C-alpha cells in the first residue's frame, strides 16, 4: 500500500481527497488500479501523468518500483521548449 498525492486537477475524480492509498508495486500497476477505481483518471493519463518518487520525476519508466515508505506525487507531464 502506498500513499499517492494528487495534484489539484486529479482531486475531483477521487471525490476531493488530496491523496489516495493504492496497493501497487510499480507505476504501471498504480496507473492500472487508479484507472479501475476511478474511471475518469483515464483521460488524464492519456494527456500525460508523471510520477515523482522521493523527488525523482519519472515520465516513462513504468517498471519503476514504488517503495512502501516513498513520497509519491502524481504530476502533469510537462512539455519542453
Amino acid at each position, binding site marked *: 500500500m502506498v500513499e499517492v*498525492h494528487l495534484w*489539484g486537477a486529479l482531486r475531483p475524480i477521487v471525490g476531493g481527497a488530496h491523496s489516495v492509498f493504492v496497493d501497487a508495486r510499480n507505476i504501471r500497476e498504480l496507473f492500472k488500479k487508479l484507472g479501475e477505481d476511478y474511471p475518469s483518471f483515464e483521460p488524464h493519463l*492519456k*494527456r500525460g501523468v508523471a510520477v515523482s518518487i522521493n523527488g525523482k520525476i519519472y515520465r516513462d519508466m513504468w517498471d*519503476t518500483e514504488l517503495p512502501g515508505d516513498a513520497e509519491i506525487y502524481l*504530476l*502533469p507531464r510537462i512539455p*519542453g*521548449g
Partner: protein
Amino acid sequence: MPLDTSFVARKFKQIGTRPLRPDGLDKVTGRARYGADYNAPGQLIALVLRSPHPHAKIKKIDTSKAEKLPGVKAIITSADLPDLTNGDRGMRDMLENCMARKKVLYDGHAVAAVAAIDATTARKALKLIKVDYEILPHVTDVDEALKPSAPVIHDDIFTDGVEPKPAKPSNNNKRATFGHGDIEQGFKDADFIVERSFKTEQTHQGYIEPHACVANVNPDGQGELWVCTQGHFVYRNQCAALLGMDISRLRVTASEIGGGFGGKTHIWTEPLALALSRKANKPVKLTMTREDVFRASGPTSSTSIDMKIGAKKDGTITAAHGVLRYHGGAFPATWAEFGAMTAFACYDLKNVRSDSIEVIVNRPKTAAYRAPSAPMAAFAVESAIDELAHKIGMDAVDFRIKNAAKEGTKSSYGPVYGPIGIGATLEAAKNHPHMKAPLGKNQGRGMACGFWFNFGGQTCTDINVTPDGSVTVAVGTIDVGGSRASIGLMAAEELGLPYEQVRVVIADTSSLGHNDMTDGSRGTFSTGMATVAAARNCIKELCKRAAKMWDIPEDAVEWVDGMAKPAGSNAGNFPPLSIKEIAAAAGNTGGPIAGHNELVADGAGVSFATHICDIEVDPETGLSRVKRYTVIQDAGKAIHPTYVEGQYQGGAAQGIGWALNEEYIYGKDGRLQNAGFLDYRIPVCSDLPFIDTMILEIPNPNHPFGVRGVGETSIVPPLAAVANAMSNAAGVRMTHIPMSPPRVLKAIEALKKH
C-alpha cells in the same frame, strides 16, 4: 546491459574541455543544409491559403477555378485529410490545427493548400480559391475569454478539474491547484503583504528559419519527409497517424535546424505537404513565409496572473498564493498548469497555493517556448518578492536567500527536493562583482531567480567502431545548440579516444529506434546517458574481442585509457591492444564491433538560475537599455562549457526581448497586426550588452556525469530581473510585459502626478 545512471564523481580527461563543433565548418561556408535548402527532382511548390478571419464557419470552399489553372497539380482541403484520430482529442486538435475543418479558429488558420509547378502558379491558384465564410464573434484576450459574455469557441469544452462538471461549455478547459499548508493562516501571520495583478503578452520563439519541408509519398504507401524539426521521430509518428500511413513506411530525415526553442516540437504544415504529394504523386516542397510563421505556428501564451505573497518582519515568507490564467490559443491545453507548478519552486514555503486556469482564445495554437510557461509565472512571483523585500526593508538577495528552497524542502508542486542549486546561485549573485558595480544616472539594478524542471525521455544511440578504429555515434535527438560536440565528448571520454576520432551524426528515422524530441533541455542529458551506456556496451565487446585475440577469458580483460589490457598478472602478460588493433582484427573475431543502447532517461535534474540586470531608463520617453547582464546557473556538469555559456546567453537575450518589446498585437478585428520582424521586435545586436555567465556545477545524482539540462532555465528570470531593475531605475513597478516605452512612460507620468 542496464546502465547504472547514478552520478559517480571522477576526474575527467575530456569532459569540460572546449573542442570545436563538428558542424561549424559547414555552417560558416554556407554548406549546411537547412529545411529550405533541399530540393527533390521534379518537385512541386506548395502554398497554403489562410483565413483572414479570427473565427468563422466555413460554409463552402470552391477550388474548381484553381484546379483548372495550368500548372496546378493538387489542391487539398480538410476533405483530403479525413479524421482518423479515433477519439484522441489531442491528435484531433493537431489535425484541425493543420487544416481547418468546419470552422476557422484564428487569423492565419489554414483552409486549403495548393501544389503547382512553381511558386508563381501556386500564388495565382490561391487567389482563385473561393471560401465562403460566416463570420462569428471572436475573442483574443485571455481575461475577456473567461467572461460569461465571451463567444464560446468550442461547444464541447466543459471545464475539467471542477466538480460537479459544468453544465455549459466555456473557454476555460481546465482548472488545477498545487500547494500545501494553510495560506489563510499564513497571510494572517504576515506583517507585510504584496498583492498585485500582472499581465504578459504573447511572444514567439522567433527562430530565424521558417518551417520548411520536402515531402514525397508514393502510391505504394511509402514516403519520405525532409524537414526542419526538433523531433523527427515524433513528426514521423504524428504525420503517419494523421495520414493513415504505417509509421515504418514514412522515413523522416531531419535537416539542420535554424532555431526552434520549442516551436519546432509541433507539426504545422508537414501533413499538408505529405497529403499534397500523395495526391499529386510528386515531391512537394512547402516553406512557410515569415508572415505564416507568426500567424500560424505556435507562439507562447499570453497570461493574466494574480499574485499575493506575505512575510514577517524578519523576512520569513508566511504564505504565497497565485492565480494563473494562460491561453492555449484556439485549442484546449494545460499551459497554466505548468506555470502553476513552476511559480514558487525557488522557495521554501510553509503555506503555498497556485491555481491554474486554462483559457481558449482565437489565436494560433500555443506551442512550447523554452521552459514553457515558467517565465511568466516567475515574472509575477519575482516582482512581488522584490516588492516585498523593499517593504520589509531587506536586501532583495538576502530576502531570497532566507527563503530559498534547499535539499529536503517540500517543493511548491509537491515532492521533496534532492540536492539543488538555488541557494548556490543566490550566494554567487550576492558575491558577484556585478552586484557592487557603481550605477550611473537613471540606472537601476535588479535581480531575479528562475526554475525549470528539465526532463529525459525515450532515447536510442548506436556506436559503431569502423575498421580503422575511429568511431561513429548515431543519435536520434536533433542538435539545436551544439549537442553533437557534447555527445562526442562524452563518447570520447567513456571510450578513452580522442574527440577527433568520434563522429556524431543525427540518424534518420529508419536507421534508429524511436527518440523523443530535443526539448525539455534533454538533448545532452538523455542522449548523453544513452551514449555513455552504448559506449560501455561497446567497451564490453572490445574487451571480448581482445580476449579472443589473446585467447584468455573475457573477464580477464579491462579497458583503460582507450586500450584493452589484461586484468591482473595471472591473465597473462600481453602488451595493451588499441581500439585500432582490435578494429583491424574484427573480421576474424566476430565481425563488426558496435555498442547500442535504448533507454528512458528519467530523473533529469531540476535547474535553477539567478540573473542580475542593470538598466537605464530615459525618464522623458520611457526608453530603456540593458547596460549590464549576468547569468548564474547550475549546469550540474558542463560538458562543453562554451556551449553551455551560449545557452545561458541566448536564453537571457530572448528573455530581455520578451521583457522589453516583443508582443503579438491583435486589432479589434482579431487580426495579427505585426506578423513580421519589423514590428515584432526581437533584440538586435546593438540593443544588448555582453552577457556575463557563471556556470555552477552541482551534480545531478541521476546522471553518470552529473548533467542537468541547461537549455531552458536561462529564459525564466529575465522578465522579472528587467522589471525589478526598471523599478529601481525609474521608481515604477511595471506589471504588464512587455515594458515597452509607451507603457513605461505612462507609468512614469502617473507617478509624477501622485
